[in-house]
């Protein structure tokens, strides 16, 4: 029994963090945000050199062949730096789906290019994680029609993975669809509306356990979104603690006021167990199938709650400064808020957890 990160995993985190510290400063994020740039080319290139887009792609297809826990650690780092690059859709949901459901030919066609960073993939699962304002996605053999909302990693995507209403998974090339970017509070990631009008597609799987396969893809996404929130929350807590140790009022460092100290302690006490929950859910995805779905739901929902709490309290610790654009704390705040709603709101996901346990 060893519930801890391996040396390789600690090294991975360290490497990604070092890279982000160099190449994803707040200035970079701010500049990207001002230009609605959510795929920073040089940053994405640097991550590609480390093999990040191929984290979950098997070595047979040019990837690194790691597990979901490794992807979660990367997401944690990306969240910690509010990094303006695709990841959850293009490097988690798409590779997981293609590897679970694709034919040999499809894997050969798509995975090496995703792994090398040559292409990125937008992902539209909206019909299954709380559909709104959409038109359900229907298929007619190898064509897809309908309107998907809140597709992830859409900017400059070369191909889109879409889940149809009846749980089929299709790949559709960008030239086949109409993409409207949607602008959320979070300027560090891209989401969009995709209109499919008899778009010709490469269907991944049209028979077998469609529902189960799709659900597994969603599980992976939920764990990784939760990890992104963990990283963003930890960054906010660290900033709050640092600020509380510097800022003076009434001739005292504000962190010596209990009202401030206790806000920090509460954030830490709430957030620290979340780390274990994310680790466990990510590990379960690969190693404990019978617990994977339930723990993915709980990781997603619980991190959403704790994330919001930390985002709010960390802002309060910074006082008026926390509310300014100048400090940039709001990038983390907004990333956490977007994560909360992605791939199922906490209430929606907990309802799924109730069904899983036979409570309804």
């Amino acid at each position, binding site marked *: *029994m060893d519930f801890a990160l391996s040396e390789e995993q600690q090294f991975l985190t360290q490497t990604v963090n070092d890279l982000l510290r160099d190449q994803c400063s707040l200035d970079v994020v701010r500049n990207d945000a001002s230009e609605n740039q959510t795929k920073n080319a040089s940053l994405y290139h640097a991550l590609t050199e480390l093999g990040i887009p191929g984290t979950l792609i098997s070595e047979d297809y040019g990837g690194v062949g790691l597990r979901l826990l490794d992807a979660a650690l990367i997401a944690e780092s990306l969240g910690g730096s509010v990094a303006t690059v695709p990841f959850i859709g293009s490097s988690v949901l798409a590779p997981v789906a293609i590897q679970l459901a694709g034919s040999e030919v499809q894997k050969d066609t798509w995975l090496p290019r995703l792994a090398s960073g040559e292409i990125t993939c937008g992902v539209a699962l909206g019909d299954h994680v709380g559909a709104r304002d959409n038109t359900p996605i229907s298929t007619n053999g190898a064509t897809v029609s309908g309107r998907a909302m809140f597709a992830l990693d859409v900017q400059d995507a070369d191909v889109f993975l879409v889940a149809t209403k009846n749980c089929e998974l299709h790949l559709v090339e960008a030239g086949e669809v109409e993409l409207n970017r949607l602008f959320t509070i979070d300027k560090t990631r891209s989401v969009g509306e995709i209109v499919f009008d008899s778009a010709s597609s490469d269907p991944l799987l049209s028979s077998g356990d469609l529902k189960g396969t799709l659900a597994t893809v969603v599980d992976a996404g939920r764990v990784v979104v939760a990890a992104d929130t963990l990283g963003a929350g930890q960054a906010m807590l660290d900033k709050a603690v640092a600020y509380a140790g510097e800022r003076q009022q009434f001739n005292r460092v504000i962190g010596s006021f209990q009202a401030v100290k206790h806000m920090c302690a509460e954030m830490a006490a709430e957030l*620290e167990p979340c780390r274990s929950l994310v680790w466990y859910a990510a590990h379960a995805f690969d190693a404990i199938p019978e617990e994977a779905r339930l723990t993915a739901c709980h990781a997603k929902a619980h991190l959403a709650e704790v994330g919001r709490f930390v985002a709010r309290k960390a802002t309060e610790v910074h006082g008026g400064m926390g509310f300014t654009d100048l400090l940039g704390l709001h990038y983390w705040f907004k990333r956490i808020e977007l994560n909360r709603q992605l791939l199922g709101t906490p209430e929606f996901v907990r309802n799924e957890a109730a069904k899983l346990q036979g409570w*309804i």
Partner: protein
Amino acid sequence: MDLEYSAEYEDFRSELRNFLEEHKHLSPGAVARAPANRESKTDGPNPAQRWQQLLIENGYAARTIPKEYGGCGEEPDSLKAHIIAEEFAKARVRPGHSGDNRLVPTVLELGTEEQKRWLVPPSIRGEMSWCQGYSEPGSGSDLASLSTRAEVDGDDFVINGQKIWTSGAQHADMMFCLVRTEPDAPKHQGISYLVFSMDTPGIEVRPLVTMTGEATFNEVFFTDARVPKNQIIGKRGEGWFVANNTLKHEREGLGDPHQAENRFREIEELMQNENVDGEPIMNNPAHRDRLLQLQGRMLAMKYNGMRVLTSQRKHEEPGLPRWIIKLQGCELNHQMAAMAIDSLGELGTLYHHSEHIRAGGMWQQRFMMDLGLIIGGGTAQIQKNMIGERALGLPKEPKVEVKPA
């Protein structure tokens, strides 16, 4: 990350399961350790003591306590300890104890050879029970300000003063107690740690009824109570250091994630079995969502416990994951009891053996007791101070010098 147990541990677990299956009928029902009343002690061992003896013989209690002091003398193995806690909790069988989880480790670490032989064997057999005489009316969170005095007279300390909130003092055979022996020293350096019989002349125990309606704790008054000088653990004036050792052990015991998981299962059953307007409470989405939120917290604390366990096995300092256990674990238990009561609605308020009562009023009992545990053993606010200062490194409150008028 590897959550598989090696063969050695799997074997250990299955032996333990077999043992529990075969012997659990011998376990005295209640999970709480109900100490024998001092007056009503009979000659032979009572069922609780016999159960404890059986567990020690099989290596499931007092595991790491050396053989010469009556324990099993096993190497410390936190994973086996974890498996024991887990399996007893799952089987809902009363676990064994190591005498007193605060006093015994302290004596083993800091006591003399003579003290170890005197105190440890009967404690782990359950023949010598303990109460903790720390808090005083004027000294709770600020424990180091305590003023119960012990003055040397010949071969004895002579104790005068008062303790309060002393849990179990009415039943205990012995007290471990903090007293001021050096009144002129700075407050942390003038304290000594004494152990003595509750039958010592000059000790008066007055029960103090708690909000649950029971007198689980007491006031203890000392009037010229004489305790031999060799009944001090550690050196004179070093009692604060000794006491912190005990508090460390106590804090780790509070907020245990196994308990939270059991409690969660009980609420799940309750919500499936209790009806409102002819429908199980589980059908109510608002209640269900609340239960799920608690499940998420419970799981996070359970895995946090696994992380702490792993650090301990590697002899690493667990840091923050351990600092938060008392605060978060006690709060979670309290929230769960609240959830159970709310699921029962008006029925949840029944008490005092009332008709229609559910589970003997256990949830109300727990709801109140858990609030007690949020306060006792270092209040939630003190926990937050410790997390802020020791784990996050925030500055202490500036000291305010209060000059006597």
